[in-house]
């Protein structure tokens, strides 16, 4: 029983990890909280649903197409909403409100298109699962853990090694200085939005492999992602791993004691505790106020 809880936590952590990495990335370059990520998460899941169930493509191909589709949604949001607002010198609060608006619109579009009832892409026959540390884990679950880890490693390597990664880190550190160094900051924000949204959509896809999807599924995943990102230290990708595992363990191990309905409450409690006592997260450094 205990090892099964651990395995479940690991699977949850892999989904949180992907979502949190996207949130952390988007926040670090744009300095506002992308609420609409919740819709992008659901977009990822429903894209797979359309491609796999309606069009009839294999699940793997559907997922490979759905992830960049989610990225494209993020791209569109940036181009149509956030960038024009930023040009008008809108602050983070205005951008957050716009993002909430975008979420509501997108979520309603999905409700209209697919209905509010849950949809599923999971195989109808129940899978037995492979024995793993005295628990059972299905092939799909193993793949989702592997995908999450692989994405994170690729992301981290790209950030440290590549020219693009350095550009993105420069923009995160000081957008104005990046701009006067000759970096096209709007361009960086654009492709980071794409990558971040692709991660969000991937989170949605992974989740839909495990549970049924609804148009509002993104909210819970977003909350988990935010908690993992805050716990890990926002903008710190390695910290996000710790944050995701921490949250998943807390949620799943607590089901020993209390009912699973309390999982969101636990996530919120952790979020509040960290915001109050350690806002910089596990790994984050105290934010240094920039001078003048």
């Amino acid at each position, binding site marked *: 029983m205990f090892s099964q809880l651990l395995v479940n936590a690991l699977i949850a952590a892999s989904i949180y990890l992907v979502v949190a990495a996207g949130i952390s990335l988007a926040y670090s370059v744009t300095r506002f909280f992308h609420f609409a990520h919740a819709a992008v998460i659901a977009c990822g899941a429903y894209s797979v649903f359309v491609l796999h169930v309606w069009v009839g493509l294999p699940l793997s191909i559907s997922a490979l197409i759905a992830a960049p589709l989610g990225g494209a949604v993020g791209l569109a949001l940036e181009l149509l909403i956030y960038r024009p607002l930023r040009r008008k010198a809108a602050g983070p609060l205005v951008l957050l409100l716009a993002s909430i608006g975008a979420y509501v619109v997108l979520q309603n579009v999905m409700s209209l298109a697919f209905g509010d009832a849950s949809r599923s892409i999971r195989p109808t026959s129940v899978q037995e699962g492979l024995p793993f540390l005295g628990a059972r884990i299905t092939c799909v679950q193993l793949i989702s853990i592997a995908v999450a880890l692989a994405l994170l490693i690729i992301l981290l390597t790209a950030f440290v090694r590549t020219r693009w990664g*350095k550009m993105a*880190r*420069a923009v995160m550190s*000081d957008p*104005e200085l990046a*701009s*006067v*160094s*000759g970096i*096209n900051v709007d361009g960086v924000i654009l492709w980071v939005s794409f990558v971040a949204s692709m991660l969000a959509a991937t989170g949605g896809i992974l989740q839909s492999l495990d549970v049924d999807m609804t148009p509002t599924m993104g909210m819970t995943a977003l909350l988990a992602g935010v908690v993992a990102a805050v716990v890990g230290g926002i903008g710190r990708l390695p910290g996000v791993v710790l944050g995701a595992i921490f949250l998943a363990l807390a949620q799943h191990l607590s089901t020993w004691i209390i009912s699973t309905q309390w999982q969101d409450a636990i996530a919120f409690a952790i979020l509040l505790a960290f915001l109050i006592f350690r806002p910089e997260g596990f790994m984050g450094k105290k934010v240094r106020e920039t001078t003048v």
Partner: protein
Amino acid sequence: MMLEIRKLDTGYGKKQVLFGLSMEVRNGEIVAIIGPNGAGKSTVLKAVCGLIPAWNGRMCFDGTTTNGSTPAQNVARGITFAPQGNRVFAGLNVMENLQIGGFQVPRKELRGRIAQVLDVFPVLKDRAKQDAGNLSGGEQQMLALARALIARPKLLMLDEPSLGLSPNLVRSVFGKIVEINRDTGVSILIVEQKVREVLRVCNRVYSLKLGKLAYDGTPEELRDDKGKLKELFL
């Protein structure tokens, strides 16, 4: 003429900060802008590098009108800028900061350029892998200067490079600035509060007051006229 500003009006949002400002920097010159806090000194540099748009008037760099250019375009033309506050990319190490400074430099050349600039700033050489956020204030200023030099600018703009430095370090930063100007012939436009020090190194000086030109002349005139200097800062 390296830089020519004619009747420039600009500001932030609806607030006008500069009123009909005209000034120029000739080839190889060090030109200082002085003036009290809030006079609009930094705003001049931000307008020239393209961070804020000109509302009226004309800016001309090396024969090309630069009104409406982006900062990236201006860097490509040869204008680099070290903004106020000794800013570096914290979270990136010293080497990466320099690589970002040479962002538009062809990859093959970049390594050589960095080595050259590091020769001018030996303190940075030992700290190549250190996070720029953890450097001392003086080291950060050196890095800010070095970063702005990698692109081999024709016009280097510095906003209060002496900010927060001890008197000794101020002298060594100004020493570096003169050395760079002498060795590379780069024109330098420098905003400075430490008037006495900057008057010692510049060829010409402008003083701003409430967004308008209050003085335009040589440092010698100003050094000898204590009354005038006081008046400019009142």
